[in-house]
């Protein structure tokens, strides 16, 4: 941290405000980031972090406020202005051309001439220098589609450095990385800091903030609520600043008392829409009264596993529920049949699967259970009044806000949308509950509540299969952990006998013995 009183801040935001219609995404935000530091911005989904960074990168124009870069008032109208001001951005979803090489991707948009060959030669030399200087190893001739996500992220960082960025913004950079890859990224970030770069790290993970940042700003509801030195704070305080009240970061639960097997999976194989085999023969058992957590980096077959169990996709192999085999394709294997068999499903993507966003809350409460006789008035008509009454009950019990059955799902916050899904599924008291990413994009307060509900179902003697890419969530919620990599189960561990490091190695495909 070489910021001194005489050097102006690398970035200074003064009174930034931005509204999207009625939504005040940013309200009078001021921020000062010293050069050569790693500055974390933490906040819940929808707190306005991404909007703020989009203003800094020129995607949005602020309604009010000023941006100062290195002591100079700077107008940023588009990303070209941002790049010219020395700002580089690494997005959560990479912007790379899959069938281009690393080198081609790096010069894309900065070719520097009409002819490709001399530009590529020049870029190759620059790239070698950059790689050496910052310890960023990449093969310039590898195709993007053939390298891993960690490597792809490095390409994104190199793209910014190639454009002479002195300020790097990383938006949720570890979402797709294994813990080991994340550690590697943090090493790169520290190296960049040593070389004098300024880094802004946007994340909702407290651990990352504590690990790598020098200072941290907390955003809540579009406002900057605090900026503190990382060394002088702790996760509990940050969580409280994010949510605005004290929160329980650990899941409070009694030891599990597993009973008879509820779900038995043998030799399950699943193909995705393109016909690629994503689940390559797995065996799993989930018992009554336990939560089995499936850990793994996104895209290693967990989604397909959930989809087969939930009746959204055909598969091959054997699945038994309470000892009875379930069909894996055809009419008897659809979502209706699964629900009838006693499987409830909180899907990974609540907006595309679990809810119809245009439907009212009460219509969504019947979603998937619209054949329930309690919801029918007679052979022809549905009993909408009964559904609404049921919705009122669930709104009350699960504290869904606003408490309005007529509101469209779209108009609830992420946490309350998820509560609608969780209420609908858990209140069916299923034998087996499938849960995918239960707290993705959900605010901390609602996370606490949803976790409690899942544990309560377990304590009632039901089986729960939990899929999450958040290792912390798996470690604190699951009673037993199976790690999935490339469509296979790499090993099973008990949460009290393992740690993030060991699970991380399994998630990266190293076998249990090597760990």
């Amino acid at each position, binding site marked *: 941290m070489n910021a001194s009183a005489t050097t102006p801040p690398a970035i200074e935001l003064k009174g930034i405000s931005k*509204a*999207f*219609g*009625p*939504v*005040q*995404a940013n309200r009078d935000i001021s921020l000062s980031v010293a050069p050569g530091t790693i500055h974390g911005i933490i906040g819940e*989904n*929808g707190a306005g972090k*991404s*909007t703020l960074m*989009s203003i800094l990168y020129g*995607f*949005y124009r602020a309604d009010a406020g000023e941006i100062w870069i290195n002591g100079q008032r700077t107008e940023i109208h588009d990303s070209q202005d941002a790049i010219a001001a020395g700002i580089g951005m690494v*997005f*959560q*979803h990479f*912007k790379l051309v899959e069938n281009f090489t690393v080198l081609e991707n790096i010069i894309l948009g900065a070719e520097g001439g009409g002819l490709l060959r001399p530009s590529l030669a020049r870029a190759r030399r620059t790239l070698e220098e950059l790689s050496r200087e910052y310890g960023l190893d990449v093969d310039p001739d590898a195709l993007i589609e053939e390298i891993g996500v960690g490597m792809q992220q490095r390409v994104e960082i190199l793209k910014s450095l190639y454009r002479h960025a002195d300020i790097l913004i990383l938006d949720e950079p570890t979402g797709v990385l294994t813990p080991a890859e994340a550690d590697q990224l943090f090493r790169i970030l520290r190296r960049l800091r040593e070389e004098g770069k300024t880094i802004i790290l946007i994340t909702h993970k407290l651990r990352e903030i504590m690990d790598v940042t020098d200072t941290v700003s907390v955003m809540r*509801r*579009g406002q900057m609520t605090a900026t503190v030195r990382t060394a002088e704070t702790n996760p509990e305080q940050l969580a409280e600043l994010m949510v605005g009240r004290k929160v329980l970061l650990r899941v409070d639960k009694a030891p599990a008392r597993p009973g008879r097997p509820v779900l038995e999976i043998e030799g399950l194989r699943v193909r995705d829409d393109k016909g690629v085999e994503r689940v390559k023969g797995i065996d799993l058992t989930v018992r009554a009264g336990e939560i089995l957590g499936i850990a793994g980096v996104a895209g290693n077959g967990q989604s397909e596993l959930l989809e087969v169990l*939930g*009746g*959204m996709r055909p598969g091959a192999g054997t699945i038994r529920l309470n000892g009875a085999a379930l069909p894996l394709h055809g*009419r008897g294997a*659809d*979502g*209706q*049949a*699964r*629900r009838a068999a006693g499987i409830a*499903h909180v*899907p990974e*993507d609540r907006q*595309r*699967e*679990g*809810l*119809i*966003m*245009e*439907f009212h809350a009460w*219509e969504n409460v*019947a*979603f*998937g259970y*619209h*054949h329930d006789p309690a919801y*029918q008035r007679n052979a*022809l*008509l*549905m009993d*909408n009044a009964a559904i609404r009454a049921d919705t009122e009950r669930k709104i009350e019990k699960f504290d869904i806000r606003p408490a309005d059955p007529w509101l*469209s799902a*779209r*108009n*609830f*916050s992420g*946490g*309350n949308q998820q509560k609608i899904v969780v209420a609908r599924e858990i209140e069916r008291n299923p034998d087996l509950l499938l849960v995918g990413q239960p707290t993705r994009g959900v*605010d901390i307060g609602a996370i606490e509540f949803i976790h409690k509900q899942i544990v309560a179902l377990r304590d009632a003697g039901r089986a729960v299969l939990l899929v999450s890419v958040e290792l912390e969530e798996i470690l604190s919620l699951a009673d037993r952990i199976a790690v999935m990599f490339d469509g296979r189960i790499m090993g099973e561990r008990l949460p009290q006998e393992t740690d993030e490091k060991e699970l991380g190695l399994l998630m990266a495909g190293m076998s249990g013995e090597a760990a």
Partner: protein
Amino acid sequence: MDKMPKWADVVLIPLISLLLATILSALVILGIGEDPIAAVKIMFDGALGSTYGWGYTLYYATNFMFTGLAVAVAFHARLFNIGGEGQAMLGGLGVAMACLYVPWPHWSIALLAAGVAAMLFGAAWAAIPAYLQARRGSHIVITTIMFNFIAAALLNYMLVNVMRPEGSMDPATERFPAAVHLPTLHELLAPLGIGFSKSAPANVSLLVAIAACVLVWALIWRTRLGYEIRAYGHSETGARYAGISPFRITMIAMLISGALAGLMAINNVMGEAERLVLNSTEGAGFIGIAVALMGRSHPFGVFLAALLFGFLFQGGAELALWSNIPRELIVVIQALVILFTGALDNMVRMPLERLFLALGNRRRDMGEGAPLPERKPTQPTE
């Protein structure tokens, strides 16, 4: 928070669109040196000024209700059925067969049978594109358009080679027997002591069309099938999650849609022409698309939009008759209304949404700070 109140979406946008279309039409009429006020007067007098005019307006509106509902039902399943024209033609074939080949004792039984035949034929014609979409992924817009041409060719063949009475030079069937004559509004209203033009073609089918509006409303918003159709229309992955079969919904929605389009034939073939002629549909299948768009795929909206287009059709015909405005220009005027109310929806919608947002903001700034909804603005970058 929705961007603007529902009433603005449902009422204001169609009205503004209509107003814009009217203004532009007036300019066009001025441009050829005619008087737009006089033209409007002719249209109103011709379409609504007499029971004769009303009889035609309602006759056209009946056609458009059927085809508009057909498009609307499919649209709820996010299927764009452009094939209403062909399905209505096939419906005509069904009506003609039912009326010509079976001796019916009374018009009411004949109407029932002809209606069923019309629906079956229309549904069958929609079933093939539906199957191709559901199983093979062939785009329903393309296939239904192609099926319109096939329907026209088929009808041509049937009328020229099969159903034409011997010795006739006219590619049409013979006249339906008198027993299947449907009561016109004149005959229906006379017992009530209400005088109605004798020569206007509006008939009992209008009541069937209104009943169809009510039934479609109940189907879409009150039945499980309607729930599934809407869910599938909003999100196919959501439907898969809920165990709603995309194949089943695609087939059923298109069958209902085709049946509704086919049912139009009880009005134009059985009620008006009383025989099957070439081009009996007169483009009503396509007007149905505009009617459904303007009616926001809601049966009540379809009802109102069908009345409007009925007015435009009848008023336009009168205009061609009583003014120097050439027939082609009247088609231009009708097309302008379709263009504005159907296709250029966003042109009116977006400024209006911005206006409502601005109004909403001002109101909020004066009041307390509203809690921030979670919904994130869409990142232009992702």
